[in-house]
């Protein structure tokens, strides 16, 4: 029994790399579930039917970042993985991916094909400091503010002229707040920490940033950041810390009928294009099944000097496809990736995910038929020169955890913004220093050897 077990472990079956018909088998791991996974499955099926040399096995899995990490470390990764774009630097700096610019001989996935905002997400320096293309966009996600047009009309705001500046946004928010007889909140115009997934982005709306890549420094304590977080705290002060905590306790999950925007508890919310899917799936509907929420989408508000209707300020993020180091069939993997990046497939997937296209040019049909009525705003953010991305540092996960925790304490008014930011700047800098120490140990400092 024991010998059998050892023998099985040592010489037992491995994941087949060739099917019975002599086709190369590629393993493709993706993080999506439900309708998002099903949409990608259609593209995989189309690829499998399109030729007779390669067959893609599609597996959706949770914890894909950790599983990919472990399989690369173990030397037996899948052939293609769908990661989040912010993870590219982590894998790229250690050369744990195969650069696509080596494999893309026909230029089918060159970065110029994609919208301006996405290009940086696909590239990063390798272990020698050379910038390479490591990924292609699979779907994109930009952020903008959804607003409830009915609420706007109710308080005398023009839903066709949504606020553009911070000042206009504040005025709209104040008008939209509703309380009941005992003073409890029944509706808020806007709350920065709902849903709180991108707690730090407001700094950019004030012209600042959180990380300076050139010097590898945390700049979360800079005056722009102080202004942004003081702005956040002004909402908390006005609405009341305890009142908003009690109010928020009644918010349901994002992907449920109790989503605060769907229940009308929030009139404005920062989200990606995918919220339209939740509105259609879970929002109130009329007798014919038509969604009743009349929503509009506007770019997130900015300080007056940043207002530029053609180049809105907003986060540009997305999902990417990569080929891990150790992939047995990189050429075939590249062929599959290139297939997924044909315009018809990119648009089909984006439509199914309710997202804007990742490509530089979207077809008019795509924009016209898109189920998200605000898709042009999300597309504008993707094409904008003022779009920003998650900081491209391998310390970002730790950095972001710190910022997310701070946002909650900021909202709770635990300390003045400036003091809290000074503390957090020091701490986040220590994470960057730690990453630099790791690079130094391996002889690839990005600060010239100074940690």
């Amino acid at each position, binding site marked *: 029994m024991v010998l059998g077990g050892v023998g099985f472990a040592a010489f037992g079956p491995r994941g087949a790399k060739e099917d019975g018909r002599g086709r190369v088998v590629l393993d493709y791991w993706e993080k999506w579930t439900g309708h998002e996974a099903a949409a990608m499955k259609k593209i995989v099926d189309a690829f499998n039917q399109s030729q007779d040399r390669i067959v893609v096995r599609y597996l959706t899995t949770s914890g894909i970042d950790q599983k990919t990490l472990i399989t690369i470390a173990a030397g037996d990764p899948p052939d293609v993985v769908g990661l989040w774009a912010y993870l590219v630097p982590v894998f790229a700096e250690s050369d744990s991916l195969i650069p696509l610019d080596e494999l893309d001989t026909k230029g089918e996935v060159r970065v110029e094909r994609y919208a301006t905002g996405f290009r940086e997400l696909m590239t990063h320096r390798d272990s020698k400091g050379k910038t390479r293309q490591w990924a292609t966009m699979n779907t994109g996600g930009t952020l903008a503010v959804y607003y409830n047009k009915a609420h706007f009309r109710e308080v005398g705001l023009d839903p066709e002229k949504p606020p553009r500046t911070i000042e206009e946004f504040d005025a709209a928010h104040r008008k939209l707040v509703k309380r009941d007889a005992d003073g409890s909140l029944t509706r808020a115009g806007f709350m920065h920490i709902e849903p709180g997934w991108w707690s730090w982005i407001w700094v950019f709306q004030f012209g600042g940033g959180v990380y300076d890549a050139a010097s590898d420094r945390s700049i979360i304590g800079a005056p722009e950041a102080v202004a942004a977080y003081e702005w956040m705290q002004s909402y908390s002060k006005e609405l009341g810390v305890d009142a908003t905590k009690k109010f928020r306790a009644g918010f349901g999950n994002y992907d449920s009928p109790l989503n605060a925007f769907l229940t009308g508890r929030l009139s404005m919310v920062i989200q990606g294009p995918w919220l339209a899917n939740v509105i259609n799936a879970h929002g109130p509907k009329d007798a014919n099944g038509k969604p009743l929420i009349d929503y509009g989408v506007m770019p997130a508000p900015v300080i007056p000097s940043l207002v530029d209707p053609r180049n809105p300020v907003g986060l540009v993020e997305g999902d990417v496809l990569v080929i891990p180091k150790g992939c047995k069939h990189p050429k075939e993997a590249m062929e599959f990736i290139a297939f997924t990046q044909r315009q018809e497939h990119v648009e089909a997937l984006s439509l199914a995910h309710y997202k804007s296209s990742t490509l530089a040019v979207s077809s008019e049909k795509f924009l016209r038929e898109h189920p998200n009525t605000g898709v042009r705003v999300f597309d504008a953010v993707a094409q904008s020169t003022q779009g920003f991305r998650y900081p491209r540092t391998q310390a970002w996960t730790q950095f972001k*955890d710190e910022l997310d925790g701070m946002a909650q304490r900021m909202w709770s008014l635990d300390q003045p913004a400036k003091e809290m930011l000074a503390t957090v700047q020091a701490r986040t800098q220590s994470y960057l220093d*730690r990453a630099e120490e790791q690079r130094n140990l391996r002889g690839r400092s990005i600060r010239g050897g100074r940690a």
Partner: protein
Amino acid sequence: MIHSRAQLKKDLLGWLWVSPWVIGFLAFLAAPMAMSLYYSFTDYPLLEGPVWIGLGNWQRMLTDEVFHAAILRTAWYAILFIPIATAMALVIAALLNEKVKAGGFFQAAVFIPTLVPMAGSAMIWLWMLNGEYGLINQSIHAAFGWAGIEGPNWLQNSKWAMPSILMISLWSIGQMVVVYLAALKEVPDELLEAGALDGMGPIRRFFNITLPMISPVILFNIITLMIGSLQVFAIPYVLSAATPGNDPRAMYFFTSSMYDNAFRYNQMGYASAQAWLQLLITLGLTAIMFAASKKLVHYRA
């Protein structure tokens, strides 16, 4: 010769029978432990090979503020949970030890929560503790709302995070109750009767007879509670991830830090050092408890 051959065959057969355990122990416990000890002296980001840094990770633990806060929070949890859980389990076991109607039902009711997986338990409590719609706050409102007393915002107020986690942990003390119940049933009736004849009341009998008689079991339970407390992870992890608007650091414990460093921050070397520190603390506290038990624990001859 014949005898030694037979003995050898017998020995080999014995080893063969225990070999699944031995192989499992070596492959899945001893080897990983040895490797993690080595990694604790290296910088090991998983995607690249480990680089020896000597005591670097251990020195870093001295200056890591987030880790210090996590250790302190874990210590508080242990300090609060161990005595409360022990007292509650003892009281419940003592009550269940009485001959009451439907005693079996109550025993089952106390034990069943231990069968619920930790993550499932956390999800149930997530709803129970909801500040606005949760069963607990709704009950408090129904009972005391007339006096203006309302339940707190359990999970979104960082001050109430620890009481929430304690409450959830206490829900699952059934296993300990069963062990105490078994121990209570082993206390000789003649000793209790002798105490009663000597004029001892039930409380004195409990403290002077029952408690010393079950003290080895109390020691065992306290040590397992201490180990469990130092490793608390699943409940705060699920609650923290599933509660919008909470301060994630309010539910950040020793093991949370270790998990993040290993699997989210790609610092396996540092996480390994943390794991070894946890083991050393556990061994140290266990040794102290055993030393203290010499005077406090009564072993029957």
